[in-house]
């Protein structure tokens, strides 16, 4: 009863879970233009799932293709009939590829993994040290390209599976809010970004979850080990208006029903492309310019943390930038490669001495 009253009060005053406040971008998170200034490693249609390979090569998925970047040249390794939604490459060269049409290529036979329509929702693949394969399903209701819809629907139906080298599949965790690509750790646990919940979880082999980072200023996606700490990519910023809309399920449902996805009030991976996209007051061009601090549905942000997940550095592309939709990163010999979907590029960050590998 008290809970009900508290909920009513919070709803009336916009407090508690009805509040739309966001973490301030201060201290380590102070904005810069590092991503916009970063040198370009390669141009690609929609780069994602970066995988460092030996000899300085970088593998990644892009649209319907799997590509390899080596010595400045991009080469298409495989082309599929449908967009690749997840991709992983083991150190010894085995590949795992999931596609939007439900196709899933694995180096082993599997038993027990969800099949059919569910396989269209695979958002992450990774090989662990024992040769098993981790599979993240973004949602049980939506395909892998519909993360905005799942977010607007308040979805928390994702799951994480592990396929043992024998091919036996086992569910490690369920009820995840759009998990991203898993990052297996040395102790057998898995680090995974719960995108729609704006947090990072560590899930033990026994399924025990611990929240490692929470209330992030954006929707996290790709993770990588970086030196003693971690690199975390946020694919889109959280935004007060979107936070507000997320608390209005009836409006969200009507918007999903009646308007095209590009026009939703929802986070986006790319800077505005059309006048049909929603615009917030602060993003109005004044004297021909968009302010960098304007409210935006898209941005680029990569955070480096220490071993205890305390942020140490951050690299930004703000409202007036282009390197938005930073979905994935991987360490190469030169530094940290970052995939920006918005700019259709792979960028190179060289953070320098501190916390270098």
């Amino acid at each position, binding site marked *: 009863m008290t809970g009900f009253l508290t909920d009513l009060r919070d709803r009336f005053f*916009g407090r508690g879970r*009805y*509040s*739309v406040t966001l973490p301030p971008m201060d201290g380590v998170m102070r904005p810069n233009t590092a991503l916009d200034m970063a040198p370009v490693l390669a141009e690609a249609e929609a780069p994602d799932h970066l995988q460092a390979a030996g000899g300085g090569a970088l593998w990644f998925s892009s649209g319907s293709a799997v590509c390899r970047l080596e010595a400045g040249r991009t080469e298409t390794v495989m082309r599929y009939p449908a967009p690749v939604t997840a991709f992983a490459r083991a150190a010894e060269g085995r590949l795992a590829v999931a596609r939007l049409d439900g196709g899933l290529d694995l180096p082993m036979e599997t038993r027990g993994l969800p099949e059919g329509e569910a396989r269209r929702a695979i958002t992450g693949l990774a090989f662990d040290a024992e040769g098993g394969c981790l599979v993240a399903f973004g949602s049980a209701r939506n395909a892998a390209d519909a993360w905005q819809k799942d977010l607007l629907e308040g979805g928390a139906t994702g799951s994480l599976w592990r396929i043992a080298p024998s091919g036996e599949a086992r569910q490690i965790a369920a009820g995840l809010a759009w998990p991203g690509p898993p990052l297996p750790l040395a102790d057998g646990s898995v680090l995974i970004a719960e995108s729609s919940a704006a947090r990072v979880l560590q899930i033990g082999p026994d399924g025990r979850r611990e929240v490692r980072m929470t209330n992030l200023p954006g929707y996290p996606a790709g993770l990588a080990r970086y030196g003693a700490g971690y690199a975390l990519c946020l694919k889109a910023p959280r*935004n*007060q*208006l979107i936070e*507000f809309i997320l608390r*209005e399920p009836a*409006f969200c449902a*009507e*918007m999903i029903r*009646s*308007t*095209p996805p590009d*026009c*939703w*009030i929802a986070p986006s991976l790319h800077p*505005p492309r059309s*006048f*049909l*996209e*929603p*615009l*917030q*007051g*602060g*993003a*109005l*061009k*004044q*004297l*021909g310019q*968009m302010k960098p601090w*304007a*409210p935006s549905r898209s941005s680029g942000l990569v955070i480096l943390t220490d071993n205890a997940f305390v942020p140490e550095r951050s690299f930004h592309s703000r409202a007036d930038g282009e390197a938005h939709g930073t979905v994935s990163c991987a360490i190469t010999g030169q530094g940290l490669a970052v995939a920006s979907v918005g700019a259709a590029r792979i960028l190179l960050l060289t953070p320098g001495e501190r916390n270098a590998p």
Partner: protein
Amino acid sequence: MSLRSTLSRLRYRYFPDHILGEILSKTWIDNAIPVAILALILAGLGLWNADLVSLRSLTGMAPQYAETLLVTLGMVFVLLAGGIDLSVGSVFALANFITLALFNMLGLPIGVAIAAAILAGGLVGAVNGVLIGYLKLRAFLTTLVTMIIVKSVVDLLLLSFAVKIATPVTSSAFWDFLSFDTVFGVPPSILVAIVCAIAGHVMLTRLRLGWRILAVGGSRRSAYNAGLPVRRTIALTYVMSGMLAAAAGVLYAARLNAAGSDTGVGLEIVAVTAAVVGGNSLGGGRGSVTKAVLGAIIVLVVTNSVVRLGLPAGGNSLALGVILLLAVVIDVKWVKNRGKFLSSVYVSPAWMQLPARPATAEGSGSPYALNDKLADVELIGLGEIDGPEDPILDEAGNLYAGTRHGDIIRFHAPDFTTHEVFVHIGGHPLGLTFDRQGNLLACVAGMGVYRITPEREILRLTDQTNRSWLSVIDDSRMRLADDLDVAPDGRIFFSEATIRFDMSDWMVDALEARGNGRIICHDPATGRTRTILPHLRFPNGIAMCRDGQSFLFAETWNCSISRYWFDGPRAGQVEVVVADLPGYPDNINRASDGGYWVALVGMRTPAFDLMLTDPALRKRMVERVAPDEWLFPNMNYGCVIRIDEAGRVTDCLWDRTGRNHPMITSMREHRGWLYLGGVSNNRIGRYRIPGADPDWTAAASYRGDAA
């Protein structure tokens, strides 16, 4: 349309949500709380014991009320200047004693006695004033001390003369009149109080001294910096307070003809309570005579009721104390939170559903299909001009445009590389037009309609129209005159985009989507200004049709263009010409092909269109989300279309990237070129219209109109 949306539409059409914010933004709203308290108290007492609030009971209090009101008035003046006067009770007793002593005991003429009493009050006030105003002592302590001293003096005098002063040795017709008579049933003391209250009201609201008192109380430092005589003003309030308390003492003497040691005791608490309950701020600077009048009534009704209900001794003071405490809490909270509350309730969205959005996709075959014709415009004045809402050219080819700095800038023909400030008006000039005599007419945001002669003389044509009866906002003022055009007979028709928001917040009006704007006609021949079309959704561009009897006007948030006949057989009729634009129309101007150019200042987005049908959601957004994060129409892209008089689209010019012209508010055709302006842009664009008549000018076109 579903039942739910029909209900929503009806509810938002007929329930005037916006009035709450408008009422709260009125200055008299501070009186609402004391009036409500008074009503509650009267109702409560009436329910308890109807006799307490009967007419007889209330008129019985009248003489006492006169005294309370006079003391309260003095207290309010002091409070308004930021002080407090605790000595009023003692002064009251002193004046009572002096009046009786001089008249009853010494037999002096009553006029002398009254004058002496009031003079004595003024003197005590002057002592307070000098100590507090000039020597900057603390008001509370200082008046506490004078209260004790004066009280002691009165008590000492009473010891010796208490009996003598109560037995008159002389009589006076005037004194008897003051004591016993009535004028049309009203005791003379009430008349005195009313006269003082009216004088006080005039002083506070109309006279220099009153304004100074308010300024000093509002912010002493600012008043000092503004050069006001702060010390003298403060001192004067104590003198006024002393004299008013003394006058009350005189009335008391006339009423009771007696003096006792309890005369005037606790009066300062009564006066402070009355002042604060009425809504006068203890902090100074906020208050009025009306509030004093209300407060005095409340206090008197309560204290008298307490007495008549036979509560034990001390009940009276207890009641006063409780009221004072409550009033102070309300005062503090109200003053602190009023602005916050107002800003959260002012924006009040209405229900609206736009017709389906026409296609704009490239290659869609739609007349609005996206292209990039404006990609290579020539730029004029890039970075040198701020906010050319509506550029215009004279016959010599010079280019004029208003700026946010309040200037009209003239770029010189033929290449527009040099410019000068043509005139400085002060407000942001929006719509511009030339009348048939070659004068430049300008709609100026926040100021009205102005005429600028070629010799640069500025003349205000109009800044107010008729007040509508049912508008809470004073809609006779012009808040956002936007665009104008001149009929063949010289009448000026202009749009006022919204009466609810200022220029800086014009886009917030989009969130309301209510008919907040209007079209107004000013006739220079008679000087009369009348509203002709009220309740339009951000009326914007106006362009005379070539028949000389009608004009086209754009309603921005309605995404429509309509035609209004002001003369001829269809006079008074409105006809929608284009009902479903893909964006928000701004200015309309004539084209050389017989049609009209229309600027689309921004584009409709599906998300915003959807939100228009959910006013409650927009209201919550306004309350919860920071203003910079509110959803607006997409004003970062615009285009220019050309329509014929029937509303068919004959051309469409896009700036696909929005790099040069993200928000197009106006365009003018002149000798084969189209000049583009934007209210938040820093450039004027110039586009060569393929195949346009290279000799066509708007001025010549207007000369060719039917008269």
